[in-house]
């Protein structure tokens, strides 16, 4: 065997970076790691930890103490640790029809509100996308404008508008359209008004962002191939705006299900939503374990749509 390596030219020396540059590189790499850790840390401290605390409380018993629940971990005399998980709170929620009915009612109201937001929000978003270069920023500004005013103030304004002696009834009576005031405040109708009004921007903005990306030549291509406008809407526009519909719907549905202020102020005692029940358990009854259990069940109900959302997001980003 001949050794060829002797004939081979010396490999060129790998060019070394100066020490200072190497040091900078290392700091940059480390910095990149730190940056990716931040969101995880954030979720851990502000989401996961509180969740486990609430889960822990939901598995405890009510006690006359401060805080008003028993500890899960108990130490018996001879240094043995026992963990006591109490599922009574969940059983209680399941057996008392008040809670079940309230969940169903909350879901009914939030699903209906989401649908109404979509029904009105979709054409609004579409119109904004199609509006001219002058009108578009103004219209978008108008959508965001309500956020400059306090949420509570806006709900109180609706109380003033909807009350028996409120603006709307007074106006209708003055115009001679009705004789007696129509009861609107403290009804489910008022709650729908409040939720749809409050959450509409959360529907419109994701829809707008989605529609803005749509190429108008797709509509023209459909027409060119013989498709009438309504058919084009259902075959082309609607499927392509599905990611926006899903995003907007979840942004409305999830907070609306747990909504507390709107049903409390506009629905009064007549509209039971789970947010109100939770508040009552927590502050009036001081029953933290049941309140925590109510919150956990609500979370489980809401996790499902979030998973649907994630699924669609994955699919949408795969397609575009």
């Amino acid at each position, binding site marked *: 065997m001949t050794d060829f390596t002797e004939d081979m030219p010396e490999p060129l020396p790998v060019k070394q970076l100066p020490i200072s540059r190497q040091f900078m590189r290392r700091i940059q790499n480390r910095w990149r790691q730190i940056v990716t850790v931040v969101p995880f840390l954030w979720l851990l401290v502000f989401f996961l930890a509180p969740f486990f605390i609430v889960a822990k409380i939901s598995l405890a018993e009510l006690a006359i103490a401060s805080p008003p629940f028993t500890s899960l971990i108990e130490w018996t005399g001879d240094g043995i640790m026992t963990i006591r998980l109490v599922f009574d709170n969940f059983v209680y929620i399941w057996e008392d029809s008040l809670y079940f009915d309230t969940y169903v009612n909350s879901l009914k109201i939030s699903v209906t509100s989401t649908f109404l937001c979509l029904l009105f929000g979709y054409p609004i978003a579409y119109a904004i996308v199609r509006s001219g270069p002058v009108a578009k920023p103004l219209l978008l500004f108008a959508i965001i404008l309500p956020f400059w005013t306090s949420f509570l103030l806006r709900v109180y304004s609706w109380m003033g508008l909807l009350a028996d002696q409120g603006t709307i009834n007074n106006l209708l009576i003055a115009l001679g359209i009705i004789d007696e005031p129509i009861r609107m405040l403290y009804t489910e109708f008022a709650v729908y008004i409040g939720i749809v009004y409050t959450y509409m921007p959360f529907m419109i903005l994701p829809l707008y962002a989605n529609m803005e990306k749509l190429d108008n030549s797709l509509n023209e291509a459909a*027409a*060119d191939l*013989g498709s009438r406008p309504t058919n084009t809407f259902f*075959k082309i526009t609607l499927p*392509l705006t599905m990611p926006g519909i899903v995003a907007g719907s979840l942004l409305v549905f999830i907070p609306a299900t747990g909504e507390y202020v709107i049903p409390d102020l506009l629905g009064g005692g007549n509209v039971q939503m789970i947010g109100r029940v939770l508040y009552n358990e927590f502050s009036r009854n001081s029953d933290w374990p049941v309140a925590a259990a109510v919150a956990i069940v609500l979370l489980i109900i809401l996790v499902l749509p979030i998973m649907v959302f994630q699924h669609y997001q994955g699919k949408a980003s795969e397609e575009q």
Partner: protein
Amino acid sequence: MTVSTTVSAAPWLEQKEQQPLVQIRGVTKKYGEVTAVDNVDLDIYKGELFCLLGGSGCGKSTLLRMLAGFEDLNAGMITIDGVDMADVPAYERPTNMMFQSYALFPHMTVEKNVAFGLEQDHVPKFDLADRVHDILKLVELEDFKKRKPKQLSGGQRQRVALARALVKRPKLLLLDEPLAALDKKLRKQTQFELANIQDKVGVTFIVVTHDQEEAMTLSSRMAVMDAGRFKQIGTPTEIYEFPESRFVADFIGSANIFEGRVTEDGADHVRVETGFCEVFVDHGHSVKVGSRIWVALRPEKIRLEKSDEVAEGPNQTSAIIDDVGYLGETSIYKVRLPNDEVFDVTMPNQSRPTHATQRITWEDKVKISWDPSSAMLLHS
């Protein structure tokens, strides 16, 4: 696919007696103050591959979109196969369009994209599948029918767009910059493919393009557009060899354009006096003796040879090489004429320039000359 055998080489001559497939009469389109298309008239005959050629903003795309039904006319009339299109919406026109961006439906597979148009016509299922299969075979995409547009290359997308537009067998296919999104090599190859497909299916094509080479390769006839008007309509050869105006002469290919004065106007020849020599043209032209006129000479039609003698006689002059550009297949020479005008002359590099002395180079004294048939007289 129906294979038409009746496509002739020059439908605009042979069908002269018949009604043109497309009649454009006095069509005008304005956007506010801007006139995009300005009172144009055009006849396009069955089986033609007609190119609308022009720079950006010349109105060529607007005219195409008016044919498709996406834009209303401000004035004039468009008829397709004898039917006035004024009240016919885009979805009922016997035209299909291939979009510059292709406009493929991103949520549908190749197959579904192609089938979309047939579904709108309620074509029966078995027939639909056959037609989709045939057209995908024509554009060589059968193996890709289950893919989504984003899983295809640019060239494949272009072919899907073509298949989708062709599958409905339109009377008229409108193509908006069909090759602009492809890279140069693929574009050249596709130019010929497109012309072959047109030949096979026998559909009348109207192609909008800004690329003069594309227009020359593809079209049976073409119209050169500028500022919303047609500058000239004719076959590629007519447009290249007999431009009517400085704009067309300069837009298609390159040309050395200079001024002269007509000294003789015969039935079969014209003489023009210019600042450097007499130009003799061996065909008749309707010009007035004594009038000033523009003359154009294509760089490749000028002969160039080393010569120390002073050139005398028509169609030749002495000159000095100002600059040389080596382009590989050809070389371009900037030659300075006695009156200080500079001409471009191109010559093919037929042999490798080995001996530096043989080469024509800077400051060389040369003689340029051209055939009596080469000079082009321009009206404007």
